[in-house]
């Protein structure tokens, strides 16, 4: 993948995000370690726990593709340098498309 992946400090809250392998849809890791498509369910991790969660995600190749850290607030809200990109990944294009265009 070529998206910008800024280095995040250990204490910076971060989510684990990826693409669902079967569909390509955006997914995030929820607090229980499952994958969710609901931005409201995004879990924020820090420090060693975050590293462990990403390591876990990287083992799930058939389920998710190219997991990586994304900066979030302590409550899982999208924030930081990549806010626009990650918001578009979460919500879809910022313009109407198809029949609704």
């Amino acid at each position, binding site marked *: *993948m070529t998206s910008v992946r800024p280095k995040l400090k250990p204490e910076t809250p971060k989510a684990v995000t990826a693409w669902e392998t079967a*569909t390509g849809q955006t997914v995030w890791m929820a607090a229980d370690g499952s994958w969710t498509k609901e931005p409201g369910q995004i879990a924020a991790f820090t420090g060693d726990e975050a590293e462990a969660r990403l390591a876990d995600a990287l083992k799930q190749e*058939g389920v998710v593709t*190219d997991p990586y850290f994304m900066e979030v607030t302590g409550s899982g809200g999208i924030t930081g340098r990549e806010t*626009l*990109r990650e918001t578009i990944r979460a919500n879809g294009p910022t*313009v109407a*498309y*198809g029949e609704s265009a």
Partner: protein
Amino acid sequence: MYRYDEFDARIVSERVAQFRGQVNRRLSGELLEDEFKPLRLQNGVYLQLHAYMLRVAIPYGQLNGRQLRRLAVIARDYDRGYGHFTTRQNIQFNWVALKDIPDVLESLAEVEMHAIQTSGNCIRNTTSDHFAGAAKDEIMDPRPWCEIIRQWSTFHPEFAFLPRKFKIAVTGAEHDRAAIRVHDIGLHMRQRGDVVGFEVHVGGGQGRTPHLAALVSEFVPETELLDYLEAIMRVYNRFGRRDNKYKARIKILVSELGADEFRRLVREEYAAQREHEKIALPPEEIARIHAYFAPPELTPVSGSDAAFEALKAEDKEFARWARINLHPHKVDGHVSVTISLKPIGGVAGDATDAQMMTVAHLAETYAYDDIRVSHAQNLVLPHVALKDLPDIYRELKAAGIATANESLITDMIVCPGLDYCNLANARSIPVGQAVQQVFADPDYQEDIGRLHINISGCINACGHHHVGHIGILGVDRKGEEFYQITLGGRADEKAAIGDIAGPGLKADDVPGALKRVVDTYRDLRTDKSELFIEMLARLGHEPFKEALYAAD
């Protein structure tokens, strides 16, 4: 148009079966993404911001009604009811699930389509003039040669792992509508006495280091074309850089060696090749491929058509569309029709499944079952009788694709940008829409005349910003979108790379700034016949830079 023979059909269906197995292994986790990525890319499958994207090849931009209907069905059944026609004359589906892609490819194979050569470091879809075989100013039809190049290049083992992707464009008209000077190889068909041949330009391209192609040969006879292309490819394969992706395109090699040295290397390789392993296309094979592209049997009609003239007199909107979206045809009483996919406030190049069905129906009913995709992201019916224009217009209007703006300021090339693309730094589509709104008044647009604005959402330049009369490049500065403006680019036979006008603008400031530039042009032009791009050449860029950065 070309029809598959048994070999074409077999290799395409074998490829689909092979990819089905690869997808199954990916879904089971047996293949890791790093292993799968080169395989999916060889089948046109990208992973974009929020979904997989499937890029389907439309060789030299030509389709028949059955094929366009199939694309519509795929859009409806596997996507979200639309597809995106690209500057490479292909179509992209933005929301296809990986698990469904083998079925989509199987469905495409039934109508002689595929996604081969739409990605990866191979020779990509050969592009051409969207009015090929129809335009009044055309000297020779380039499509048979595009097809010959396609057959030669598909799965050519020597060119499967080039240093970087490779794009060839061919034109057969004096006026270059295929942007050949910004392709890795641009071929301009020429005739010397009875011999047909090609002027060969090499090393053009856009992206982060734009270059215009250098003239490498003034005339290569048609029977020697493949040998000559093979010599170019071999020089590139041997000397092109593989250590740095950003310096791997042939434009860098030609630029670093210089055109003379590159030409010498090609001649040396060509001579060696001709001695030992020449391809020497047999005339009967050239004739066989040409037969697929025989023009439709049109009956010349002198003068205009009464119904066409009557509707023009009665319906101002139709008259405007007829003034703007029709192109002169070789056969009297006929025209080529541009179906604009640039409605004001729409998404450039997008068409819904219903719109694709409408165009397929029109092609089958009135236009000899021939449809083209232009690199400007529009559709074209190349062969239409004047008498059929009123009926065609009514159907296009009902389908929402009768916008009268071909080559006008709102007929912008716009890449998908950050709304879809994983490479993009900034959004293109909303900026394009905002610019369109400023120039939406049809009289204003027509008064401005031909003016190409092209937008890219990153330096890779899929939106051809370097060769827009006005180019817009989206850049990211610490998470904020800015837009750099270039002036003076053009993609035709007078090809030029635009100059950066100055500092980037915020998105909200772009439409107003461009309006000031355009109004400066209207104030200073000698008369309406002087195009914006011609005036830039006459006056220089200074007055326009001043206008661009003037306070509102």
